């Protein structure tokens, strides 16, 4: 009688003679075996992720033990990074990582959401696809290309036009004059943040656009029907409806910004120092590791770099956890 699919049995349950019943039992047993095998296979695949993650954490912890043993918690709170005397503190790279990522999000979130709103609500139809594809292509550019472009094209532009302007404009404003102080190097924390903003833009835009598209037209049409403006529709219907998805996109972007290595290394200036000025060179955790790991001689030096990796892991974990928590709170409020 050939192979039968589950659906076939569902249909002809009515008329079954005894041989068919036997046949049916055997087939069902075969299905059961197949199902078990399939379940085990997928379970192995899923648990492989856990094993890998556990392995990464374990090796990071073991690798960073010598550093934490040598410096204790001072490792997190000092900014001296001296390979000669083997005194290492992670504060400068931690600061650089957090500040560049925060600035990048500050720049990229409004622009990214703006693009997504334009594409879904305002853009003429023939333009939607080209602009959407262009944004997605941005995500496909390798980060080293961003780095080289940043160093050769963006940095000189910023050095010539942006930085002197910033320094001049804010030279007499109390807080801002410290934020934008110093000689215009072209590269530095601000340039790195610009590059990061460009790099995370496609993540925020394409995810927001996709979730904006899921808003039922009925809702939007009803809002327009009672006389809402486009702005009001976006603010009171589209964004509340897609909040979770948008925050997910932003978090994905933030994750990339925190871990981005090559592009940042090229343009941040790689100075192990915390400067009040955003124009001054700084460093990030991943840039430090990329720069120094190959030539790190000595156990404490290597271990300190691995400890930096562990800290980055920790920062990413905390931020993702916070995002989850925020989402939970939002959902509770909504319900």
């Amino acid at each position: 009688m050939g192979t039968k699919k589950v659906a076939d049995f569902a249909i002809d349950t009515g008329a079954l003679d005894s041989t068919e019943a036997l046949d049916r039992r055997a087939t069902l047993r075969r299905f059961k075996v197949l199902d078990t095998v399939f379940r085990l296979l997928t379970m192995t695949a899923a648990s492989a992720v856990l094993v890998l993650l556990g392995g990464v954490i374990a090796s990071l912890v073991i690798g960073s033990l010598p550093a934490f043993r040598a410096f204790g918690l001072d490792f997190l709170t000092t900014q001296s990074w001296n390979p000669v005397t083997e005194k290492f503190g992670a504060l400068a790279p931690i600061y650089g990582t957090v500040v560049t990522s925060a600035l990048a999000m500050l720049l990229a979130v409004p622009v990214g959401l703006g693009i997504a709103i334009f594409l879904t609500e305002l853009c003429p139809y023939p333009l939607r696809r080209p602009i959407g594809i262009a944004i997605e292509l941005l995500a496909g550019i390798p980060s080293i290309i961003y780095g080289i472009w940043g160093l050769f094209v963006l940095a000189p532009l910023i050095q010539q036009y942006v930085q002197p302007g910033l320094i001049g404009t804010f030279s007499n404003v109390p807080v801002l004059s410290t934020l934008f102080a110093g000689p215009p190097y072209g590269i530095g924390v601000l340039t790195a943040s610009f590059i990061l903003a460009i790099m995370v833009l496609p993540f925020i835009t394409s995810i927001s656009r996709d979730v904006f598209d899921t808003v039922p037209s009925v809702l939007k049409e009803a809002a327009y029907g009672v006389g809402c403006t486009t702005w009001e529709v976006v603010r009171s219907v589209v964004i509340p409806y897609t909040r979770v998805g948008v925050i997910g996109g932003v978090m994905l972007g933030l994750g990339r910004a925190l871990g981005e290595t090559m592009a940042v290394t090229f343009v941040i200036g790689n100075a192990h120092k915390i400067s009040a000025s955003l124009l001054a060179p700084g460093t990030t955790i991943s840039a430090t590791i990329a720069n120094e790991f190959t030539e790190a001689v000595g156990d404490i030096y290597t271990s300190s770099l691995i400890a930096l990796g562990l800290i980055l892991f920790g920062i990413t974990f905390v931020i993702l956890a916070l995002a989850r928590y925020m989402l939970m709170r939002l959902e509770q409020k909504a319900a």
Partner: protein
Amino acid sequence: MSFTFLRGVLAAAAISLAPVPAVLAADISGAGATFPYPIYAKWADVYKKDTGVGLNYQSIGSGGGIKQIKAKTVTFGASDMPLKPEDLAKDGLVQFPTVIGGVVPVINLPGFASGELTLDGPTLAKIFLGEIKTWDDPAIKKLNPKAKLPSDAIVVVHRSDGSGTTFLWTNYLSKVSPEWKEKVGASTAVEWPAGIGAKGNEGVANNTAQTKGAIGYVEYAYAKQNKMTYAKVVNKDGKAVAPSSETFQAAAANAGWEKSDSYYVILTDEPGAKSWPIAGATFILIHKQPQDPAVAAEALRFFGWAYEKGGKLAEELDYVPLPKDVVGLIKKTWAAEIKGADGKPLVN
């Protein structure tokens, strides 16, 4: 159809497989410094054509090279920074130099061509300490009485990655400036008091080229091939010299290799009227009693060949070959120290 196809595949497989075992058996493996990679690759290429013995060199950085040779995963390690004799003894290693290179200060100062600006050690140290901040500082004026120096800010550019170039540079600054020695010291990576960090020679070169008033330091070969503007440096004898093969060789000749322990010689601040003050050799590390004596002997034969016939190739790539008497010393070291399981020297 399938038959001819199959035969073709078999033939191709036979061709691609046949020579592999022979090559594998004799291949030398090495890992380490990136600075000598171009010349090792060139030597390996020519040597393979001459002898059929291949060399697989991974330029993973000096630190990596030291780790790999200690772990015995390679036949030899390569480092730009010599290991101290006591560290060598601890791991049963022998070290010897292969070629010499130099580090040159490069500047971006409109109106100044290569060699038109002269600096000395203490001034360079003060610039890199961030104490001399502008190009018209009295200390620079004193060294260049005739030059018209601008009042531009000095932008210091240094390497952000650990590097043998940085080691030579900071080693020189430590020798000529007690303040530098105390505050910063010498290593492949240091805690820079001033300036911006850039990755690799190319990073320093680009940042220097882009920033008006910048000063950086790069490998001589790199500066020469990219026609960068270099500054002259006043050497130990008080003479301002320009970087060239000749001045590097002068530094190497005056180094006193024969008196050194395990060739622990860093060619910075060497005496001699013609000596370029910031030069250094790059080194090979090999076990005194190699795990695989046959391959280790191949490695030594390779370097022996390189000393004899590779000098011209090195010069083409702007490295400086070792002086003849140093090569003689190294061969004696090989015979005396590197031995097989039977206690006999691997090469004579």
